[in-house]
């Protein structure tokens, strides 16, 4: 067993952390998320060109640095600490992850563009009736003229307004197919809106959108296992991001409680608050460890991978709530204001709670998987 980061992973963390310290302070971020665009393509270009970071998790054959899921976790934890809105999850973790899974010509064509910061991806899988189910797909992909015709509606597509390409799940016959679709394709309409965490999302309608056959990922109708794996990778990355956010919330709370005085003493001298900070720490440390375990198991057989990914998401979901709520409470009135960064971390933690399945959803998935042969 070895939970130590490699020298390269430590360097990756340090490089990103120092870039974010210089370019991603809370005030600047606040100003940016309030603009119509809501993000900074310049930051994205820096991550690609200056830091060479978008390739950290990809094999060298595509122009990457040879890393994988752990590199994604390192990056996501730092992005979580700085509350970064730019779409690393959608583009690199999910989009790049799916392309890496299928390999072949599509990967050879698109991974280098992702790594260079030229292609920004968003994952369009959720539909109004689906809740958190990946298999509930009503959007259809019908074979026609050497390609597919897409019809249907996707909701809550994170990073939708920023994407140059969308990865779209659609039903073809009995199975689910996955297509890479240009965001400006004819017949595609997008309605964009801000989300509670300062991000952007879109609801997208497909009306006879034509997609050439070579834009199909994997075999027709056989995409569900690909998508399930991508979702587990996304879950691990989100958990890492949440761990970064929790670290920041705990640190801010400790600092505030040490400095704010009531009744002539620092808040930190009240035992009930000390215990609450101890509980925050406990929840956080276990979340960090389980996230690493889940990340290291992403290459295991599907059932094993899914079990621990669900365990991590359920643990992190509960922990992020506990840490966020305690942090707000210990800050008193200050905790409910927009002025402090804290509230924004709390909102992001709340959003993570429902991305790719809530705590309840993952507890049930865990029960189904772990009790399957007990029946």
């Amino acid at each position, binding site marked *: 067993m070895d939970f130590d980061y490699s020298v390269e992973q430590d360097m990756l963390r340090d490089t990103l952390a120092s870039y974010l310290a210089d370019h991603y302070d809370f005030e600047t971020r606040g100003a940016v998320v309030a603009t119509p665009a809501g993000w900074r393509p310049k930051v994205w270009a820096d991550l690609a060109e200056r830091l060479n970071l978008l390739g950290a998790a990809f094999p060298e054959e595509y122009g990457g640095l040879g890393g994988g899921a752990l590199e994604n976790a390192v990056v996501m934890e730092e992005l979580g600490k700085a509350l970064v809105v730019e779409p690393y999850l959608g583009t690199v973790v999910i989009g790049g992850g799916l392309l890496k899974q299928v390999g072949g010509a599509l990967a050879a064509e698109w991974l280098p563009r992702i790594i260079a910061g030229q292609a920004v991806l968003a994952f369009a899988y959720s539909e109004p009736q689906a809740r958190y189910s990946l298999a509930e797909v009503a959007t259809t992909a019908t074979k026609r003229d050497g390609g597919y015709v897409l019809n249907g509606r996707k909701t809550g597509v994170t990073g939708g307004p920023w994407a140059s390409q969308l990865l779209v799940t659609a039903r073809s016959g009995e199975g689910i197919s996955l297509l890479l679709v240009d965001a400006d394709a004819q017949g595609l309409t997008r309605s964009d809106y801000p989300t509670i965490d300062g991000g952007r999302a879109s609801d997208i309608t497909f009306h006879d959108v034509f997609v050439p056959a070579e834009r199909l990922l994997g075999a027709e109708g056989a995409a569900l296992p690909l998508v399930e794996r991508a979702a587990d990778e996304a879950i691990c990355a989100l958990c890492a991001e949440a761990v970064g956010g929790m670290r920041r919330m705990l640190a801010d709370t400790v600092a505030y409680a040490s400095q704010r005085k009531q009744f002539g003493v620092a808040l930190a001298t009240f035992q009930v608050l000390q215990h609450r900070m101890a509980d925050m720490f406990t929840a956080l440390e276990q979340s960090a460890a389980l996230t690493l375990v889940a990340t290291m198991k992403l290459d295991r057989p599907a059932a094993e991978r899914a079990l621990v990914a669900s365990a991590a998401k359920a643990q992190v979901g509960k922990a992020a709530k506990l840490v966020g709520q305690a942090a707000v409470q210990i800050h008193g009135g200050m905790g409910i204001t927009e002025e402090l960064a804290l509230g924004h971390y709390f909102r992001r933690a*709340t959003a993570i709670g429902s991305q790719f399945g809530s705590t309840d959803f993952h507890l049930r998935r865990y029960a189904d998987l772990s009790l399957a042969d007990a029946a």
Partner: protein
Amino acid sequence: MNLDFTAEELAFRDEVRAWIKQAYDSELKQLMSQSKNGYLDKAGQVRWQKKLAEKGWAAPGWPVQYGGPDWTPTQRYLFQSETAAAGCPIVSPMGIAMVAYVIMEYGSEAQKRRFLPKILSTDECWCQGYSEPGSGSDLASLQMSAVRDGDHYVLNGSKIWTTHAQWADWIFCLVRTSRDAKAQSGISFLLADMRTPGISIRPLPSLDGPIDGEQEVNQLFFENVRVPVENRIGEEGLGWTYAKYLLQFERGVAYGSLLRYLLAKIRKIAKQQPAGGGGMLIDDPDFRRRYAELAVRVEAVDAAEMRFFSGVESGTAVGAMSSLFKLVGTELQQDLSELAVEALGPDALPFVQDSFAEIRGRPASPRPIPDHVAAVTPLYFNYRKTSIYAGTNEIQRNLLARHVLSSAGVRG
């Protein structure tokens, strides 16, 4: 013992129901369906409270001589249950349920005549100026100074977390008139006209979304603000006594019926929200169990409140019971708002910019939000306040502990 209502009580309940049906009109209802904190916008709030006043029901707790309806505890309970069950707006407490009681108990005849009728009719709105940046839980450490200058006090300092100060015509505040004595005894209780020169307001945007004149809390700055001495309540230096008297009203709200309303909202969401996989959330066993757990907690608070308000107080100090209700009531508000968010699933993510914008014909969030979804996530964020305001829940637990220990003859 008997849980049944008498024929008169049932008739009263029907009267309340019938009145709500016509008074709580569709415009108010539509505003309320978007509310993220239980209040309407100012115009709506005033319109609602005036309707209540016209009917003579604005101030259930007031004595008849000042315009109260002379209800029995059961009638008050029924009135509260009916208005909460119908989802009516909260009546702003600062005037009717707070400062009015202090004026009645400790104010001069002139103050009673000047202020009480306008509080009752909602012609004048009030805000509460207790907390300061350096003084929250430790209220007695407050610093805003009031220096006597002839027949005026001159106020300098800052108040914070002042709910709806931007709507208020008057503020009641605690100020320091002496620094010589023990912290508590140098405090006085003043009423100030919000239009007095030298008062300025800084809105404090909060977690539930950016401000648009509907912000809940503000910071106030007082710069050489001259307040006539005749606006002081009672004696100089006894403000702490009056403030403590007021506190029992601030915390004396019943939660049961409001919590039942929140439960109903969750049921409504669960009926309309797909569970993923064909069925609806309302049939999902995990959801049902979480719902039932919360509903049972609501039953318990409601039972304790009915027992308390019907007068069977079994010797427990009122203060202890109001701390108990504040604690369990607000924790349930938070937990229910949390379940509502989770019931929405992915629909919890869109951000509601300004809950009332669409109704007023201004562009709001581009995503059309159905009523059962609107304001659910903002309410969850907004309700983080409930365990902080009106004395934090840690402070309530300290008070309860003191009560439990002192009942056993132990000093905590």
